[in-house]
């Protein structure tokens, strides 16, 4: 097995007690009901709300893990769903969407790169601070096939939804059915995290090649599997297109988690569209998961 662990501490959140400077049971009480809000017999989703931050830590240069406490999101989020985070800054009002990463009790983690003003501000936040969130948003990966073998192909900051997929499969007793192929620029910052949920982590960095190199090396192995193979992928568009091409030429099903600049994140503004074979679709509401077929990526390279 080619897993490479970098010297960040292995996370204990899934099995051990919650981290952060506050006691989780204490911090997590003030929240949304876990069942949405029922008024006159109609059930409504919780809207934007302020929740406490449990911890903020740096995983790598410019890569941050931020953990919030929100019971509703923790109970309802499914792999590939995302949440909008908001700054406290009146000059920067727009939503920042991030893939939901790990879920532990009432806690939900996000992993993001500092790329601009909002992420820089989030990185400065501390345990105990509050942050506004909306979510979970969007549709999930299709993980319904009970005997499928899932290959999680992630690039850079595309790994969070794949970690959530690994955790979900793990928690539903299918951890032996996942392989994580993560491509990093340099440090393998997420290996220890996904390693909690999958014992087959084959990561790679720029010096070593790319995710296609790893897929190629699995070719023979995959041919021998009789179960259906499904690739879940999230990362830079060129990477995802390469994965789509690789998989389609082998008849392997693929599901891609897309990103697009968003206005609202919940389907009301038609800002976040992507071209599909069925026309322009909202990534936030009709996605973020699309198959290679829907995207017309099967024959492209």
């Amino acid at each position, binding site marked *: 097995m080619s897993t490479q662990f970098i010297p960040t501490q292995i996370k204990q959140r899934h099995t051990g007690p919650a981290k952060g400077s506050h006691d989780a049971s204490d911090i997590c009480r003030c929240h949304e009901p876990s069942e949405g809000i029922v008024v006159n017999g109609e059930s*409504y989703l919780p809207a934007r709300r302020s929740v406490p931050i449990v911890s903020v830590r740096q995983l790598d240069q410019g890569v941050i893990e931020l953990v919030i406490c929100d019971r509703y999101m923790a109970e309802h989020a499914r792999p590939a769903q995302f949440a909008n985070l908001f700054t406290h800054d009146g000059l920067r*009002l727009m939503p920042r969407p991030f893939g939901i990463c790990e879920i532990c009790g009432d806690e939900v983690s996000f992993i993001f790169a500092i790329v601009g003003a909002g992420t820089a501000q989030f990185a400065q936040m501390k345990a105990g601070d509050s942050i506004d969130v909306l979510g979970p948003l969007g549709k999930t990966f299709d993980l319904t096939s009970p005997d499928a073998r899932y290959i999680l192909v992630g690039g850079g900051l595309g790994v969070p939804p794949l970690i959530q997929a690994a955790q979900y499969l793990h928690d539903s007793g299918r951890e032996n059915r996942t392989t994580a192929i993560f491509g990093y620029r340099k440090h393998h910052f997420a290996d220890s995290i996904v390693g909690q949920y999958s014992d087959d982590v084959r990561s790679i960095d720029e010096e070593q090649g790319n995710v296609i190199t790893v897929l190629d090396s699995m070719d023979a192995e995959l041919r021998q599997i009789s179960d259906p193979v499904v690739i879940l992928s999230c990362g830079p568009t060129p990477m995802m297109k390469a994965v789509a091409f690789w998989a389609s030429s082998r008849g392997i099903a693929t599901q891609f988690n897309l990103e697009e600049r968003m206005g609202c994140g919940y389907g*009301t503004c*038609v800002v976040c*569209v992507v071209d599909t074979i069925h026309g322009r679709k909202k990534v936030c509401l009709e996605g973020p998961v699309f198959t290679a077929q829907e995207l017309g990526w099967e024959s492209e390279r």
Partner: protein
Amino acid sequence: MGERTMTTAIERTDALSSSQSLQDMLTLPWKHPTIVAGVPWKNPVGTASGTFNVEACSRFYDVAQMGAVSTKGVSIIPWEGNPTPRTAETPAGTVNSVGLQNPGLDHYLANDLPMLKRMGANVITNVAGHSDEDYIQVVERLADKPCDMLEINVSCPNVSHGGMSVGTDAKALHHLIGALRNITDKPMIVKLSPNVTDIVGIAKAAVDAGADALSLINTLVGMRINTTTGRPILANITGGVSGPCIFPIALSFVWRVRRALPDIPIIGIGGISNGDNALEYLYAGANAVEVGAAALLDPIAPLRIARELDDLLDARPELAEKLAEGRTW
């Protein structure tokens, strides 16, 4: 010091500070209704076109609680809009270039409109077109449909033909609205563009041609540039700016049109993020308001703002009474 008072309400109703429960927001009776061009609104707050989609929003709140809901611009055939990215952040706002992507009138009549009416919403159908003929076809087909009001969007900065070009030319606007007036009895709101030298001239042209009400403003032309690439962020280069940043500008448009046209019903739009902002529009002479960008930041913002305004009007019985009778401050 004479100016100092203890009653400024700005903070009390600030965005997201509301602690009212959704339960209360959805079930308390509305105290202060209004009437716009003869159509009763249960409160003076509507959703603004392009920021309200019934499927998306009704998951968060009962859309029938709004004074009215203005739908995304509907065109006679489906439009695919502009390429992405379609949004960029601006200080205290956003610039978007959706370009009126919409699935077209047939889809609207088969899906959104029946769903909205089933839910009990007061529906404003926002109408888009590339040409007079486009607008005419939509308005004609809506004549016998159960929408409550029409809002003719002649002010979208993101479509190359029609859209803003009609809304910035008094003559062209007069011609279009006159033509529409001939084919519909529905209360017709004309939505004006702020990207003009003489808003009063444009407003008068719309009213002369038969508009029952005016809504203003649509977005202001704007853009952002990525300083890493040196290129515009929006694929369409420019887009429409909305959000709190445009609030004082939009307010002055409403004020100026109200001064020039004392009797036409006006819906104030632009940068409203709390009940106090809405109140400023009512004092500027609006009969009602629509909330746009704030809904992008929180799905229930329009409802929260309506509740805040309803409470603020308690202390202003004179204004509330005028609104209830379809008059303005």
